[in-house]
């Protein structure tokens, strides 16, 4: 193990992969999501009415935190072109005679068009526009009732017989940093841990090298393998720790659960990720093919964690594939213990799964190693 630490400074490529690369990833990912909540999506207004009311609605739209009115379009096709070219993310159409029709009680339509191909931005636009128009219309309804002689407070109450008190569970600030970053960092680290470990192992166990020399030095195949893996476990845990300091300190993500459970999960997660790499290498005995194998397992892992599209809504096959990947359980554990303050007995399941995955991977590596040892022993 000490040998591995001594070797590290002499192998700049390896040191770069296990230290510099993860740190750069940390900085870039942290930088992308620093803003936390996307605001100020560009929208166009198609104001065919040009009345006091339509101007009031436009002001309300611009005042919504989600939106900024950047363009005025004269008709629908112009608005559509603005949306397609990416100049704006949505458009609000106020028809001719809007104000007159409203006072006559003809209930005209106010239409919000939004770009749902870019769904994350599009749904923000829809929400912002809905709230802004609601506010504008509520003001109108309020003034009608007050005009009929109702007291302001009474009129206010009458507007909404069943108000909805909305609560955002576990994430009251509705901040994306909390869950996206908490999942992206482990995803990227899983890729790097697996690939770098495979690379480190390839330097000593690869064809043309003499693993037996190393084995004699370390006193057996198991200590030799552990000596290759554990030093990097320490390094990756330090990096994970650093990212946690950044998340919980700098970006102020709340930590509501058990730190010990998360720490135990982190150790199992890093070990399991590394063993994916080690197993890929001892199976293929070729870094190129090992890298492809690692890529297939770890690169698409983010989707299977269910942060965008929830796991519960996936097919059984996708759920099973996700369950076999250590990152899925570690990210679930992190979110449970940092944001959701999940009771320990529920969260312990994630740790258990991580332990099972780590155990199975270790058994597979040992089985393959002893097979290789027998092959080498036989002439």
């Amino acid at each position: 193990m000490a040998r591995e630490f001594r070797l590290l400074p002499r192998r700049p490529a390896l040191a770069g992969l296990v230290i510099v690369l993860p740190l750069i990833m940390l900085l870039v990912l942290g930088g992308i999501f620093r803003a936390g909540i996307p605001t100020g999506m560009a929208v166009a207004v198609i104001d065919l009415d040009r009345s006091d009311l339509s101007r009031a609605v436009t002001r309300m739209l611009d005042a919504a935190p989600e939106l900024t009115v950047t363009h005025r379009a004269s008709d629908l096709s112009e608005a559509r072109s603005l949306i397609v070219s990416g100049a704006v993310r949505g458009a609000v159409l106020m028809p001719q005679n809007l104000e007159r029709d409203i006072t006559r009680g003809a209930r005209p339509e106010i239409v919000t068009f939004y770009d749902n191909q870019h769904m994350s931005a599009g749904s923000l636009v829809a929400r912002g526009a809905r709230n802004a128009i609601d506010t504008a219309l509520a003001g109108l309804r309020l003034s009608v009732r007050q005009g009929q002689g109702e007291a302001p407070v009474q009129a206010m109450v009458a507007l909404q017989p069943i108000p909805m008190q909305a609560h955002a569970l576990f994430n009251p600030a509705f901040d994306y940093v909390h869950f996206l970053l908490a999942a992206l960092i482990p995803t990227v680290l899983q890729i790097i841990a697996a690939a770098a470990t495979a690379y480190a192992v390839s330097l000593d166990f690869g064809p043309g090298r003499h693993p037996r020399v190393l084995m004699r030095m370390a006193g057996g195949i198991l200590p030799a393998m552990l000596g290759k893996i554990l030093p990097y476990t320490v390094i990756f845990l330090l990096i994970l720790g650093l990212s946690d300091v950044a998340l919980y300190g700098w970006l102020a993500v709340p930590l509501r659960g058990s730190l010990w459970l998360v720490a135990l999960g982190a150790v199992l997660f890093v070990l399991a990720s590394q063993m994916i790499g080690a197993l890929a290498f001892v199976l293929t005995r070729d870094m190129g093919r090992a890298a492809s194998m690692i890529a297939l397992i770890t690169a698409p892992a983010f989707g299977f964690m269910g942060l965008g599209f929830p796991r519960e809504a996936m097919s059984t096959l996708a759920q099973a594939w996700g369950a076999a990947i250590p990152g899925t359980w570690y990210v679930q554990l992190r979110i449970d213990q940092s944001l959701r303050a999940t009771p320990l007995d529920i969260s312990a399941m994630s740790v258990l799964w991580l332990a099972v995955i780590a155990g199975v991977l270790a058994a597979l590596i040992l089985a393959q190693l002893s097979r290789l040892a027998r092959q080498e022993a036989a002439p």
Partner: protein
Amino acid sequence: MSALATAFRAELAAVLGDKQVRMIVLLALILYAVIYPLPYRAELLRDVPVVLVDQDGSTASADLARRVDASEAVALTHHAPDMAEATRLVHERRAYGVMLIPDGFERALLRGDQSPVALYADASYFLMYQRVMQGAAVPLRQMGAEIEAGRLIAQGTPRALATAQVSPAVQVEVPLFNPAAGYATYVLPAAFVLILQQTMMMGLALAATRRGPLPGHPVWRLLGRAGAWLAIWAGLLPVYLIVLPVLYGLPILGGPGALMMLGLPFLLAAGFLAQLVAALFRRGEVVQVVLLALGMPFFFLSGFAWPVEAIPAHLNALAQLIPSTAAIDGLVRVTQMGATLPEIAPILWHLWALVAGLGLVVLAVETVSPSRPAAPDRGPTAPSDSPAR
């Protein structure tokens, strides 16, 4: 000119002849196309489970519950006597929201008071939160409007006027493109562009680390190589951007002409960038790991899933140097939104500027070190190709 032809043939052989490079390029296509879309096949979130805590137990509360349950977005799958039990179900991920109808709900309505209902939605899953809020808000608003109108009519307001007073204008929301809000339709077209870029760069960078010295002026050698990339990926690009989307049932609005016009500078820029990555990291193993790790950051830097408005300006400027940033934006607009070439002209110019810029840098690098020796680190990989096959 013969240098150009030599470089063209050598690059073709390097990509198609090398087992490892061929595996990355072709196997990746097949497997990524199968594994990546797997989580998103279900497309839509319907009937998200929600717990009902009905402390009123009245006709009105049952009516409200029935209306919410009938919405497409949510289903009231569990009933719990109190919030503690309901929260436990959410912790277990058996439900993603709680609707609490407090005691006295019906009484307050009959008296003509405000009668609030509380909705707790799991905000650690953005999509679930949205669906739960959506599923409950619409029926609540509708029931509220009916009650308000009812009260007005009771006060003697004519029916038509009462409706107009309750909702003076009709709010219509029209999603343009991806009208069903399908998750696969949203994420896959962009993901395919990124996968194409990453696997292409991986293959070409690997080939570059193994390249021996070739005769001729660097300009001809580079042009020859670029020709080889186009020859290979002109076939693969439509597979990623037309065939795969069709197989997954995604809508395609754009024509193949605009697609190829955008694809040409995209492929060239990615190829040049791959040369730089190879020159920077030298070893094939390292190149692969680095490109593998960069996939996720590249995706989020592109401003597709995470709106570009929320990316800090300096990072966004850096992101413009990555071909996928402009290519994802442009290709998604062409294939999914039916954008015409004039509408995406800035993106097209952006990509061509990248081609010119990156091309010049590659040329400068290759002129400075004209005959870089074949990568020194073939050691652990090359001889092993035989036994396992």
